[in-house]
């Protein structure tokens, strides 16, 4: 219900053209960087590095594309030192909007990470921590898994978070995922093929051509993908293409066409079923070792949410 409420609120806010995120934007990202933590244990070491736009390639040589796919604006990087010479690197990514921030955040986290109530969402892993707030994503990386370093990650994250005034909301598409059985820590949002390819490589080329997409993982090892298109005709065209493309691939077989709106293929190696349908301007895909009933159940649940029901 919480998600649905947020969906309704989102719809209202867009209807009245309210800003999607509010708060004051810092002129320079380095203003988000605290001089030291409240305890004084962690302090800045050296000067921050900053990169903007295409120059991200200078910092993330050979790996910047995924950031650009989501919508990257600029980054500030600062190293901190703490007790016994421990070090933590803080990277502040300013993205184009909260959707982009949530998207790259969803790319950076893993379901195994522990959730952390910080910003608009955060997770901590063995040696690193990610959180997002407004249109900003912050990644803090330690260089060991020691408790002192983990504490440092959290302390620094909270110190940075305090300086970020803007708030953000997850993309609308995320709220179309049915809540029942959903692993909320494992929701991925896509703005392009690279994000999807990293999450699940259905094809080696972009056969989906969506404008945005989302993946939710559910109990019973089932994944639900929603792909949004500009309009209903675009979604239908793409659906019809996919109905030909899936069975044409060697890795899929046992094609079944249930009706004009639903087909199924089986991924040969995993034995997983893939059900695909389309509703309005969205393509819905369920993958997993589940039957047609489960697929229809999930697709119906999405439809209800599209209609504004529960």
């Amino acid at each position: 219900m919480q998600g649905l409420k947020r969906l309704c609120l989102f719809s209202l806010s867009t209807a009245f053209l309210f800003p999607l995120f509010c708060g004051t934007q810092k002129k320079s990202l380095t203003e988000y960087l605290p001089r030291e933590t409240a305890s004084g244990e962690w302090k800045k070491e050296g000067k921050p590095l900053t990169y903007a736009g295409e120059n991200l390639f200078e910092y993330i040589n050979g790996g910047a594309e995924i950031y650009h796919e989501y919508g990257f604006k600029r980054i500030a990087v600062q190293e901190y030192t703490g007790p016994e010479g421990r070090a933590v690197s803080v990277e502040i990514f300013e993205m184009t909007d909260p959707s982009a921030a949530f998207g790259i955040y969803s790319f950076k986290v893993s379901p195994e990470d522990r959730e952390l109530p910080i910003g608009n969402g955060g997770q901590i892993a063995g040696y690193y921590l990610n959180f997002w707030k407004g249109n900003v994503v912050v990644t803090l990386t330690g260089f060991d898994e020691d408790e002192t370093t983990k504490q440092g990650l959290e302390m620094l994250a909270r110190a940075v978070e305090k300086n970020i005034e803007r708030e953000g909301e997850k993309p609308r598409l995320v709220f179309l995922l049915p809540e029942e059985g959903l692993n909320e820590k494992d929701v991925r949002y896509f703005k392009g093929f690279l994000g999807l390819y990293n999450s699940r490589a259905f094809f080696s080329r972009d056969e989906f051509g969506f404008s945005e997409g989302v993946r939710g993982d559910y109990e019973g090892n089932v994944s639900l993908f929603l792909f949004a298109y500009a309009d209903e005709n675009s979604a239908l065209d793409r659906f019809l293409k996919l109905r030909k493309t899936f069975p044409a691939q060697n890795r899929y077989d046992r094609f079944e066409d249930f009706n004009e709106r639903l087909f199924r293929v089986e991924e040969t190696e995993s034995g997983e079923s893939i059900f695909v349908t389309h509703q309005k301007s969205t393509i819905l895909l369920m993958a997993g070792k589940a039957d047609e009933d489960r697929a229809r159940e999930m697709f119906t649940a999405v439809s209800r949410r599209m209609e504004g029901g529960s």
Partner: protein
Amino acid sequence: MADKIGRRTFFKKSAHVGISAAVGGSFLSPLMGRLRQVTGKDIPDVAVVHGEDAFKNTMRAVEMTGGIEKFVPKDSKVALLPNTQSAHPGTFTKPEILRGVIHLCQKAGAAEVNILSLLSEKNWEDSGLLPVIREEGAQLKLVDNKDESLFKAIPVPQGKALKEAMVMKEFYNNDVFITMPITKDHAGNKFTGTLKNMMGLNFRSSNRTFHQSGWQSDPDAIEHLDQCIADLNTVLKPHLCIVDAMEIITTKGPFGPGNLIKPQKIVAGMDRLAVDAYCASIWGLKAEDIIMINKGREHGLGCMDLNRLNIQEVDL
């Protein structure tokens, strides 16, 4: 990863070994004629050494491939290409591996050991590789990746997507080339190894063409990138590949931070595809699922079929 020590301390304490290099077949100097001919069925296609000590693993892995003298003639100039893309754990070639390789090259009588890079000195400092280079008396050759005059246009006759590479001129001042990537995840290609590492010799603007303009909406963007990498490898041929598979990220690559695993392996060999196929298998990837390796096979760069390869693994 190292427990209870800061990054700098960690680098200082762990920097005991290192190695890597590569040399293009087309520019081999007469020195290469003096290479020790070591052949025989005892030399594996892929040498794998497992153990906690990266330095010792490196030394043994090179020995298993026939010994450094097989690759590095006396008085030769050796180019090494480690990966120092990021200082995040599991994303860069370990300093102790580089130390080992420099040490071996010097022992073989190399006149120069040159570490080539398009990245800034800070990358080398942050990764802990710079102190090793200085301590071992090797040379770090930083090439300004914005100055086109420092690069040489190299036709790629076999190229399907890449017709011309722009390789750093500095590379061609060497006789021997040892490539030394760390194997890890990559957001675009799913995998990084010896093939991908070659982009570290190519001019950034040229590398950027590996991502076509409008790549974000191009359905074949990944295929194009992987084809370019395979094409580039037709003109850049390492004499030896030494791959860091000690501690690597298997998600969120190539930059990290991501899921860290510790295979504690050094993988060496002359066949790039064989080495990459083995490295991919370390974290459950199949070579046939990695586009760039398949494209490399189409170019005849090597063998990616692990069942057909002589793979020798030892524990230290």
